[in-house]
C-alpha cells in the first residue's frame, strides 16, 4: 500500500501575494487518518490542493506516496494522480450527466482511452458504481441525472466517485458541508471505516469540530497558514481550540462571540 506523505518547509502564496501557507512541516504514515481544522481562510483548501498535486508549492519539499510530484514526468504524474482521490466541497459533476457515469469517471485515470469511450456507449462497470453508491445509501439513484439530486445527495455522489477510484491517498475538502448533522456524522463514519478497511491514508478538512473530534485519531490546527497544533485527538484541549478560532471571536463585528464559545464547549464535552 501507499507510503503516506510528507511536507518539508512548505510555503505557498496566492498570485495576489497573500500568504496561504508558511513553513509547513508535516508527515503521515500509510493508513493514517487526520482532520484539519481551523478558521475560514486558514489555508486548509490550499493545503489539500497541494496534497492533490493541483497546486505547486513555491518553497519546500513534498513527497506523496513515495514520489516527488513536481519532479515526475507527465506520464508518472498522471499515474500518481490516479492514486490520489480528492473529495471536493462543491461536487464537480455536470448536471446533465447520469449518476452512473459520474461515479465511473473516478477511474478515468486507470482506464485506457478506449475503455473510457466504450463506457459512454454502455457503462462498463454498473455493479462497481452501484456498490460505491450503496455504501452511501444512494444505490437506487444509479440511473438518474445529477440535476435530479439535492445538494447533499450530489456531495455523496462526489464521494462515491472517489470511493470507486480506490485511491491510496484520500483527501476531503469539507466533504459534508451540504448535509444535515445526522447524515454528516454517518458519512464521515463511513469514510473513516472505508479508509481503515483499505488501509488508505485519509486527510479531511472539517468545519464541524464535533465530528473531527469524534472520528479522527489525529488533528491538525491550521491558522493563518501555519500549523498551530498537530496532536493526537485526546490531547486537543478546549483552550487550544479557542485559541485556534480566537480571531473570529475577537473580531469587532462579532458581538455574539459567546455563541462560538458555547459550540466549542459543547463539542468538547463529547
Amino acid at each position, binding site marked *: 500500500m501507499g507510503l503516506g506523505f510528507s511536507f518539508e518547509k512548505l510555503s505557498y502564496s496566492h498570485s495576489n501575494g497573500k500568504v496561504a501557507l508558511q513553513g509547513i512541516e508535516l508527515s503521515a504514515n500509510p493508513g493514517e487518518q487526520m482532520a484539519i481544522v481551523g478558521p475560514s481562510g486558514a489555508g486548509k483548501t490550499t493545503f489539500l490542493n497541494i496534497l492533490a*498535486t493541483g497546486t505547486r508549492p513555491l518553497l519546500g519539499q513534498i513527497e506523496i506516496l513515495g514520489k516527488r510530484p*513536481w519532479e515526475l514526468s*507527465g506520464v508518472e504524474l498522471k499515474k500518481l*494522480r490516479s492514486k490520489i482521490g480528492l473529495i471536493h466541497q462543491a461536487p464537480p459533476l*455536470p448536471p446533465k450527466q447520469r449518476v452512473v457515469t459520474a461515479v465511473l*469517471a473516478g477511474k478515468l485515470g486507470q*482506464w485506457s*482511452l478506449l475503455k473510457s469511450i466504450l463506457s459512454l456507449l454502455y457503462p462498463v462497470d454498473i455493479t462497481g458504481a452501484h456498490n460505491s453508491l450503496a455504501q452511501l445509501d444512494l444505490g437506487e439513484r444509479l440511473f438518474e441525472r445529477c440535476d435530479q439530486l439535492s445538494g447533499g445527495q450530489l456531495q455523496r455522489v462526489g464521494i462515491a466517485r472517489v470511493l470507486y477510484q480506490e485511491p491510496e491517498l484520500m483527501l476531503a475538502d469539507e466533504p459534508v458541508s451540504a448535509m444535515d448533522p445526522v447524515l454528516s456524522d454517518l458519512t464521515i463514519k463511513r469514510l473513516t471505516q472505508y479508509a481503515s478497511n483499505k488501509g488508505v491514508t485519509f486527510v479531511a478538512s472539517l468545519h464541524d469540530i464535533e465530528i473531527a473530534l469524534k472520528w479522527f485519531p489525529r488533528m491538525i490546527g491550521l491558522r493563518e497558514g501555519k500549523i498551530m497544533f498537530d496532536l493526537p485527538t485526546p490531547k486537543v484541549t478546549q483552550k487550544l481550540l479557542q485559541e485556534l478560532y480566537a480571531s473570529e471571536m475577537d473580531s469587532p463585528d462579532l458581538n455574539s462571540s459567546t455563541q462560538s464559545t458555547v459550540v466549542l464547549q459543547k463539542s468538547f464535552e463529547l
Partner: protein
Amino acid sequence: MGHTTHGSTRDYTHDPDAKKRFLYFALALIILWPLLQLAEFNPLAFFDRSNWQVMGNFLSQFFPPNIEAGFLQLVFKATVETLAMATAGTALALLIAVPLGLAMTFSLSISRLGPADGHGVRKFVRSIARLLMVVLRGIPEIVWALLFVRVFGLGAVAGVTAISITYGGMLAKVYAEILESSNSQVSRALILAGSGRVGAFLYGLLPGSAQELASYTVYRWEAAVRASVIMGFVGAGGLGQLMDQSMKMLNGSEVSTILIVFLVLVLFADSLSWYVRRELA
C-alpha cells in the same frame, strides 16, 4: 468580505459603474457613425419611389418559379449533389476542428495544474495552433477553391476541400470557445484524478456543452449548403452550378425555384438543430 469600507466613506445612492458603461456606449456610437458614412448607408433610399420600382421590376422576373418536370428533375439531382458535398465538407472539417479545438481549450490543459514544468512551451504550441486556425479561416473559401482547382482540377474535390479547410478553422475556434465557457472545475477534478485530456473532455465538458456544440455544427452544415454556390464557380456541380447557369441565361424563374430549394434546406437544418438540441437537453 472583500469590501472593507463601512458607511460614510462611500456613496451608496449612485451606481459607481454607470460612467464606464456610458463612455463605452458613446465610444461605440462615435466609431459607428463614420463607418456608416463610409459605407454610404442612406436609409432614405428605402423610401424613394423610383427605387421601389427598380426592385419591383427585378423581382418580377423571378415570378413565377419554374416548375416544369424536366427542370425539377435537374434541381433534384443538383440538390442531392449539394447535400453530399456539404455533408462531406463538414465531416472533413470536423477532422480538423475536433483535435484543434481540444488542443486549444485551456481548461483541458494538464500542465496548467501546478503549473507543471513545460507549461510555457505548451502555451507556445497553443498559440501556434491558434495562428494556424486564423490562417485556415481567414482566407475566404473562394480563394481556397481557386487554389485547389489548380491542384485537383475542376470538380467536387476542390470545393469540398475548400469548405473543409475554412470550416475546420471556424469550427475549431467556436468549439474551443464553447468548451472554455463551460464549467472548468469539472474537467479540472477529472485531470486531478489522473484523467487525460480526452477523458476530461468526454466526461467533464461534453455533458454541459453538447447542445451548443451540436447546434453550431448543424449551423455550419447549413452554411456549407449555401456555400455550394461557390462550388458552382469551380465546376463542382450541384445547386451552385445550376444557379450560375440560370443567372447567366437571365432565367429568373429558374433562379427562384433554386432559391426556394435553398429556403427549404435552411428550414430543414433549422428543424434538425431544434430536434438535436431537444434530444440533448
